[in-house]
C-alpha cells in the first residue's frame, strides 16, 4: 500500500485531530462519522456521474467510502486493459495481469508466505534477456509466451524499470517502519536510462509509458525541479490521456511541497475537471492555505472552463450555492453543477425534522408533534437564496440536465409547502428525464412525498391518492429493488410517522399505533402501548377484523406485531398473575411459541441461581411453554385436593421463581412486547416490576414450609425463601435509580437475611445446611463472621 495513503489521506489519526477523546464527544458517542443519507429523499446518484459520488454530501470526508479506498489501485484496471490490448496475441490476459498487478490485497505479517513472486520473476527475466542464459523464470514463462517477441520483451523490461521506482512509491506492509518521512529514488543513472528509452523508442505506446515513468522517477527523486522541467519540455508532445493527468498531479504535488499553493490548487482543479478517475484525489489535495492563494489560483485560469473547474472543486469545501452561481455564469452546461446541486438539496434536507417529535427539555420525554406543527417547524428552514438560485436555473432550462433542476425545485417547493407548484415542476421534469430505473423511481418518490404532504386530514378521497405508493414503498421496493443507492427508507419511516400523526389527531389510537409502532428503546423492543388493557383489546379486534379498508390492510401488513404476539404477551401476563387457565388459553393461540422449550428445567430450585449451569444440566424432560403451564395447572389442582402438598408447593415455588429475572427461564418473558435484556434496567417500569417480583414464588415456598414434615425439607424451604428475600432487597434498592451508573456505593456488601439466621439457628444439623455452606459463599461468610 502506498505510504502516502497512510500518512496523508488517512485523516483520523490522533495527530490531525489532536485528541480523539474530544472527537468522540464532538460527534455524540462513537468515533465514526457514519453513512449519510438516512434523512434524505433525494438520491444524488440519480443526477451526477459516478466519479463524483465520493463528493456527495456526507458526514464523513467522502461519501459512502469514508476515505480514499483506491489510492493504490485506482488505475489497475486501466493499466491492465492498456497492456492487454498492446500484448494481444502475444500473452494472455491472466499472464499480463499476473505480471502487472499480481496480488493487490493488503499484506500483513501473517500471510507473507503466500505472497506471489511476480516481481522476482520479472527480475529474473530481465537477467535472462541480459545474459541470454535460461533460468527458472525464463523456462517457466517460455511455455506461456514467446519471450523472444519484441513486445513481450518490452513489457518485461518496462516492468523491470517500473519496479525499481515502485520500491519508493509503495510500502511493504502496514506494520513495517521507514525512518524517513518520504523515500526518494536517487539512482540518477537509472532515471537517465528510463528517459533515454523515452527519447529513443519509436513505439508510441511505449513512448507514452516511458514518458510517464520518467515523470514518476523524477517525482520520487530528490531533485524535483527536474520533474517540472521535464514536464514543461515535453508536455505538448504527449497525448492528454490518464497518464498525462497523473503526471500533471505530480507537478501539482511538487508545487504544493514548494509552498506554491496557488499553482498547485490551480493544477489540481484542472485535473479534477479533465480526469474523472482522479476526482477524489484532487478534491482532497486541493488545499488553499488562505484567501490570497485562492484568488491567485482564480487569476491563473485561462478561460471560463478552467475557472468553473476551480469553483467546482472549491464548492466541495465551501457552500455550494456560491459555487453553483459562479459556475452557472461561466458555463451553464458544466457537468460539475450536477454534483453541487445534489449537495445543495441534501444540505437542505439535513435540517428537516422527520421524527414528528420535539425536544421538550432536559430529562423530559420528547413531545409529539401534529402534522401542522411539524410543517411549521420545517418549512422556514429552507434557505431562501438557495431556493431562488434553483428556481432561476430551472426556469432557464439551459443546463446539461434540466430535469435535475426541475426535480430539485419541485422537492424544495414540497418542503416549503408549495404543493401545487411542486406538481408543476415535476411535470416539467418528465420532459427531460432519462429513461433509467433510478430516475423513474426518484420522480415517483418525490411526487409521493408531495402528495402525502397535501393531506392535512385523512378522508376516503385523499387516502386514495397515496395507496399505490404506500404499497410500492412498503411492500414492492424491499422485494424488487436490489440496488444500494436509491434513498427510499426515509420516505418509508417519514410516511409512517406522518400517517400516525394524522390518526393521532383523529383520536384513533389503534391506527396511530399501527403506523407509529412505539418501541421502548433501541435495544429493547418492549411496547408500552399494550400496558393499557383497552388499547390491547382494540388492536386485537382490529387485527382480527376481516373487512379492512385498503389503508388498514397496508397498516396491518407493515405492523410488526401479529395476533400471536399479543396472545403470547397476554399469556405471560396471566402467568405472572397466577391465572393459569387463562394463560393456557392465550398460549394456545400463540402459534409456535407454545412449543418452544425452556433451556433449563423450570421446576428445579437450586442453591445457586445459575442459568448456564441449569441450561447445561441433564434434563430428562424438556418442558415447552405449554407443557410448563399445563404442569403448573395439574400441580395446582393437586394442591387444591391437598395432595402431596409439600412437593407440589415446592415445585410451584420453583416454577414461578424460574420465570422471573432471577430464574433459569427468562426466555419465557423475553418477547417483543415485554422486551429483551439481561438487566432489569432494559425494561420499562411496568415490566421491570413484573419480572423482578418473587412474591408468588415466596408464597408457594411458605406453603411448602408449612407442609414440610422433615427438618431437611424445612431447611430447604427456608433457604429458598431467603433467596426471594434477597431479591426483594435488591429490587427495592435498584428500582429507585434509573441506570446502572447512578448506583451509589453504599458500602453494604453483606446482609444477613432472616432466612439465613433461622437456618443457622435451627437447622445447622441438616445435610441441606451443609450443602448451602459448601455452595453458597455468601452464606458461608455469614456463618463464619
Amino acid at each position, binding site marked *: 500500500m502506498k505510504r502516502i495513503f497512510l500518512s496523508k489521506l488517512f485523516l483520523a489519526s490522533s495527530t490531525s485531530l489532536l485528541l480523539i477523546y474530544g*472527537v468522540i464527544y464532538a460527534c455524540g458517542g462513537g468515533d465514526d462519522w457514519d453513512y449519510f443519507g438516512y434523512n434524505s429523499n433525494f438520491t444524488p446518484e440519480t443526477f451526477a456521474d459516478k466519479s463524483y459520488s465520493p463528493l456527495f454530501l456526507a458526514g464523513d470526508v467522502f461519501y459512502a467510502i469514508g476515505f480514499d*479506498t483506491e489510492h493504490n489501485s485506482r488505475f489497475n484496471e486501466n493499466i491492465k486493459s492498456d497492456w492487454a490490448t498492446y500484448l494481444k496475441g502475444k500473452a494472455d490476459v491472466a499472464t499480463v495481469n499476473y505480471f502487472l498487478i499480481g496480488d493487490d490485497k493488503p499484506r500483513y505479517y501473517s500471510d507473507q508466505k503466500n505472497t506471489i513472486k511476480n516481481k522476482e520473476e520479472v527480475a529474473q527475466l530481465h537477467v535472462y534477456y541480459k545474459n541470454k542464459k535460461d533460468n527458472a523464470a525464463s523456462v517457466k514463462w517460455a511455455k506461456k509466451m514467446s519471450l523472444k517477441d519484441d513486445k513481450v520483451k518490452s513489457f518485461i523490461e518496462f516492468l523491470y524499470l517500473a519496479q525499481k521506482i515502485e520500491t519508493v512509491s509503495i510500502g511493504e506492509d502496514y506494520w513495517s*517502519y521507514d525512518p524517513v518521512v518520504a523515500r526518494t529514488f536517487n539512482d540518477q543513472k537509472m532515471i537517465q536510462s528510463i528517459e533515454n528509452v523515452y527519447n529513443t523508442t519509436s513505439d508510441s505506446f511505449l513512448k507514452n509509458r516511458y514518458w510517464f515513468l520518467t515523470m514518476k522517477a523524477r517525482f520520487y527523486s530528490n531533485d524535483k525541479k527536474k520533474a517540472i522541467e521535464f514536464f514543461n519540455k515535453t508536455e505538448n508532445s504527449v497525448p492528454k490521456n490518464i497518464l498525462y493527468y497523473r503526471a500533471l498531479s505530480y507537478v501539482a504535488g511538487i508545487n504544493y511541497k514548494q509552498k506554491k499553493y496557488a499553482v498547485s490548487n490551480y493544477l489540481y482543479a484542472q485535473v479534477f475537471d479533465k480526469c474523472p478517475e482522479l476526482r477524489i484525489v484532487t478534491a482532497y489535495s486541493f488545499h488553499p492555505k488562505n484567501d490570497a492563494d485562492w484568488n491567485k489560483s482564480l487569476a491563473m485560469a485561462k478561460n471560463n472552463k478552467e475557472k468553473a473547474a476551480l469553483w467546482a472543486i472549491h464548492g466541495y469545501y465551501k457552500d455550494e450555492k456560491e459555487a453553483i452561481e459562479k459556475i452557472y455564469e461561466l458555463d451553464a452546461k458544466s457537468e460539475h453543477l450536477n454534483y453541487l446541486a445534489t449537495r445543495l438539496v441534501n444540505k437542505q434536507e439535513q435540517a428537516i425534522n422527520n421524527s414528528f417529535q420535539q425536544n421538550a427539555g432536559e430529562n423530559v420525554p420528547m413531545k409529539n408533534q401534529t402534522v401542522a406543527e411539524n410543517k411549521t417547524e420545517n418549512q422556514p428552514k429552507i434557505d431562501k437564496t438557495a431556493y431562488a438560485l434553483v428556481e432561476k436555473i430551472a426556469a432557464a432550462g439551459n443546463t446539461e440536465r434540466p430535469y435535475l433542476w426541475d426535480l430539485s425545485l419541485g422537492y424544495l417547493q414540497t418542503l416549503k409547502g408549495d404543493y401545487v407548484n411542486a406538481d408543476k415542476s415535476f411535470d416539467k421534469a418528465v420532459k427531460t428525464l432519462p429513461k433509467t430505473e433510478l430516475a423513474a423511481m426518484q420522480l415517483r418518490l418525490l411526487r409521493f412525498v408531495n402528495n402525502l404532504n397535501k393531506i392535512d386530514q385523512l378522508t376516503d378521497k385523499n387516502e386514495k391518492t397515496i395507496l399505490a405508493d404506500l404499497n410500492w414503498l412498503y411492500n414492492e421496493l424491499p422485494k424488487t429493488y436490489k440496488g444500494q443507492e436509491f434513498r427510499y427508507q426515509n420516505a418509508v419511516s417519514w410516511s409512517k410517522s406522518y400517517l400516525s400523526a394524522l390518526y393521532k389527531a383523529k383520536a384513533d389510537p389503534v391506527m396511530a399505533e399501527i403506523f407509529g409502532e412505539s418501541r421502548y428503546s433501541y435495544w429493547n423492543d418492549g411496547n408500552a402501548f399494550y400496558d393499557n388493557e383497552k388499547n390491547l383489546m382494540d388492536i386485537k379486534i382490529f387485527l382480527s377484523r376481516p373487512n379492512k379498508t385498503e389503508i388498514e390492510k397496508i397498516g396491518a401488513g407493515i405492523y410488526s406485531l401479529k395476533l400471536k404476539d399479543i396472545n403470547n404477551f397476554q399469556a405471560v401476563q396471566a402467568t405472572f398473575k397466577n391465572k393459569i387457565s387463562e394463560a393456557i388459553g392465550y398460549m394456545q393461540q400463540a402459534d409456535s411459541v407454545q412449543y418452544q422449550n425452556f433451556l433449563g428445567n423450570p421446576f428445579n430450585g437450586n442453591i445457586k441461581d445459575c442459568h448456564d449451569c441449569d441450561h447445561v444440566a441433564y434434563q430428562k424432560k424438556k418442558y415447552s411453554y405449554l407443557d410448563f403451564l399445563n404442569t403448573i395447572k395439574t400441580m395446582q389442582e393437586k394442591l387444591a385436593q391437598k395432595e402431596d402438598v409439600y412437593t407440589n408447593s415446592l415445585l410451584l415455588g420453583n416454577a414461578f421463581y424460574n420465570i422471573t429475572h432471577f430464574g433459569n427461564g427468562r426466555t419465557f418473558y423475553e418477547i417483543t412486547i415485554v422486551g429483551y435484556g439481561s438487566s432489569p434496567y432494559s425494561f420499562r417500569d411496568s415490566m421491570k416490576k413484573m419480572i423482578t417480583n418473587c412474591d408468588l414464588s415466596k408464597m408457594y415456598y411458605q406453603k411448602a414450609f408449612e407442609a414440610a414434615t422433615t427438618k431437611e425439607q424445612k431447611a430447604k424451604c427456608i433457604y429458598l425463601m431467603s433467596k426471594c428475600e434477597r431479591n426483594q432487597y435488591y429490587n427495592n434498592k435498584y428500582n429507585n435509580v434509573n441506570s446502572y451508573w447512578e448506583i451509589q456505593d453504599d458500602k453494604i456488601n453483606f446482609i444477613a437475611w432472616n432466612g439465613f439466621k433461622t437456618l443457622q439457628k435451627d437447622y445447622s444439623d441438616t445435610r441441606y445446611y451443609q450443602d448451602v455452606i459448601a455452595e453458597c459463599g455468601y452464606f458461608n461468610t455469614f456463618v463464619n463472621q
Partner: protein
Amino acid sequence: MVLFFSLLISCNENTKPIVSFYYWKTIFKLSEKEKEILQENNVRKIYIRYFDIDLHPKDTNPIPLTPIRFQETMSDFEVVPVVFIKNKVLLRQNIDIEELAQKTIGLVNEINFENKMDCKEIQIDCDWTLSSKDNYLKFIEKFKKLSGKKISATIRLHQVKYFKKTKIPNVDSGVLMYYNMGTIAADSSNSVYDKKVAERYLKSLKKYPLHLDFALPIYSWGVHVRNQKVIGLRSKLNVSELKDDKNFEQISSFFFRVKHANYKNGTFYEENDVLKIEAVSSDDLIEMAEDLNDNSPQKPNEIIFYDLDQFNIKNYEKNIFKQVISCF
C-alpha cells in the same frame, strides 16, 4: 527514629515532581524555542507519540497510523514511546490480542532500532470503555510480559471515579489526563478544563489504588461552530492570532465571528461561522496543580505537559512550569 524522621523531611523537600512533556507531532524536530524550554526546565524525559493503532477501514484489521519520524538526535533525553490505541480496535470482534501486542512491540522496537534509540518504559494511551475493558486489560498483560519494560498507561477522570467498574490495568504507574473534561459544544463551556467538572472527580483520587502522575494541558484549539453546531476542531489557534485577523471579529472574550468567508490555515470559514477558543490560562494551571495536590494520596513523580509545541508555549510566562511543580 530521629534519623528516620529527618530522612522523611529531607525527602519531602527534594521530591518536587519533574517536568516532562508529551510530543504529539509526527515528525520529531525541535525548534530553538522548544529546546530552550527543555533546557530551562531540566527536562530529561519526553513522552513521544510513536503511532496510533486504528482499524483498516476496509478489512478492519488493526494497523498503525503515521509512525513517528525523527529528524533530531535524542541522545540527551529519556524517551518514553506512547502508543495511542483507538477504543474501536479493542471493540472489534475476534481480535487477536496477543498478535496485536506482539506487533505493537515489534513496531516500537523497530522504530527504536532504526533511530538508534532505546527505552525503559512504554506508555499505552487508550480511552477504554466497559465493553472494551476485558480486551484492554488482556492487552496490557500481554504487552507487559512480552516487552519486559516498565509500562504506564493514561487514565481518564471517569476511569478513576468508576474504577471498580472500569477496572485498573496492570501497569506500573498511571498518568491522569487532567483535561478533556467536558463536551465539545457550541456554548460557552470549556472542554479542555472546567473546575466544576473536575470537582466531581477530584475526591475519587484518594481512593484510586494505582500510583498516578499528572498530565496537564497547555494546548489551545478553536471549536468551529456553524448554525449552533460544532463542525470541527481547529488546532493551533489562539485569541491573539484571531484578534489580528481582519476576517474575524471578537464578540466576547473567547468567541470570534467570521466577518468575511475565508481560508485560514487551510480551513474554509463561512461568513457568520463562530470560533470558540478553548485554552488554559496560567492561573488555571496553578489551580489544577493545587487541587490535585490537595486531593491526591501520593505525590506525583512527574508532571507531563501536553503538548510540547512552541505555539503552545508562547501563551505562557517562561517560568510557568516551575510555578506549577512548586505547588506539589
